[in-house]
């Protein structure tokens, strides 16, 4: 991906943000229109979380948070839920993922098994925050709900994260 971002047009930060916005919009639409085909008991992978982790690992904590907030807000708008709940969870996910940022080592991290560990870690945090607000109107146990649905969503997202990991891994080898 550094090869993509080292292209001249992506040297401009504004264009990079625009690219992230376009990718976030595309992933949101894919999430809403196509992910029903791969849902398991209503559990789907969180593609936007992968984008946030990607941005944080490539560009650092600051950009990770901004991308997380923007992508989360966009998703809240498209999925007709409480505005701000996904924005908050993904902002925190971007912040935490940013701790794993190493300058110039983004692709190496993404192309290794470390990506899976980071996605699992940030996924847990993201879902912990998100489901805390999600479950508030329900009369059910938070931990019971989180252990079933939060863990399942995190694991599913981690499984899907193997695709970008393998893709980048192969590109790194070239």
């Amino acid at each position, binding site marked *: 991906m550094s090869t993509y971002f080292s292209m001249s047009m992506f040297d401009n930060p504004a264009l990079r943000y625009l690219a992230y916005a376009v990718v976030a919009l595309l992933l949101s639409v894919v999430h809403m229109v196509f992910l029903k085909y791969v849902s398991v008991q209503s559990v789907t992978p969180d593609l936007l979380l992968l984008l946030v982790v990607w941005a944080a690992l490539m560009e650092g904590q600051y950009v990770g948070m901004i991308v997380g907030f923007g992508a989360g807000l966009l998703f809240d708008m498209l999925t007709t839920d*409480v505005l701000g709940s996904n*924005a908050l969870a993904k902002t925190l996910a971007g912040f935490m993922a940013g701790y794993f940022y190493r300058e110039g080592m983004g692709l190496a991290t993404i192309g290794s098994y470390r990506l899976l560990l980071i996605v699992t870690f940030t996924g847990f945090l993201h879902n912990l925050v998100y489901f805390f607000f999600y479950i508030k109107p329900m009369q059910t146990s938070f931990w019971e709900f989180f252990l079933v649905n939060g863990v399942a969503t995190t694991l599913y997202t981690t499984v899907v994260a193997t695709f970008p990991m393998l893709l980048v891994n192969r590109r790194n080898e070239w």
Partner: protein
Amino acid sequence: MQRLFEFVVRYRNYITLALLVVISFSLMSVGELSRLGGFRAVVVGSIGWMQSVFAWVPNPVALQSENTALRELNLQLSIESARYRQAMVENATLRSMLELLPHTDYSMIAADVVGKTTAELRNFATINRGSVHGVEMGMPCITDAGLVGIVVGTSENYAVIRLLENRDTRIAARVHRSSVDGIVHWQGDAFLSLKDVPKNADVKAGDVVVSSRFSTRFPANIVIGTVAFVADVENSVFQRILVRPMADASTLSQVFVVRWQPDPERVALEDRVVQRPTDRGQAGGGR
């Protein structure tokens, strides 16, 4: 000034995090997206159009599940059909004897489900009927099996249904056999939960649960599901009752929107009463 600038630069990430968290909480206090007005109609219309474009793509898991459900429903309906024929005759006779009014039939709008959205356990369905067809926010949606949800967003040609499997589901319900009242919630898995039913209430597995006449969101006597599990809970005055929804959300392909809206005068009165500060603790909201 220089020190302040250095401070901001040094702690840029933490300041940004704090700012974004505050903005997120502020947005959450705004509440549902419906308050954003026309934007929602644009979102519903755009997503509905995209889902209808790809509606032809088959979902083998859903088809298999639908097939199984339809076979079971067919068997069940054929048994019930025979019983109903007998019951209708008896009912007509008894009603004429008691001089009761006939049942009210609701007008319905048939619609195809063009898309389903499973976004982080929020289950919605998009149908190809909208405001130009008479679909309005708050109208209940049913299938031949029973209640499936409520219309939460409309555009001209599409509407979004919030399915029963949703955290905001709260329906005033009644056990049909024993007339025991309770509140149906979704508890995050395949079952609904019938809450607030005392331990001494007469509820058994297999009982049919219907919408209650106390509901301000749904007409009375729409089938919601059947009781699947009843158990006592220690240190509680209530029973734990799980309800299996009659309509399978994963197999939805056609629905009927019921042209029914709650009596606005009643809703306004009840909202006014439950919003009084002294009564806030008893507010049920959206039943």
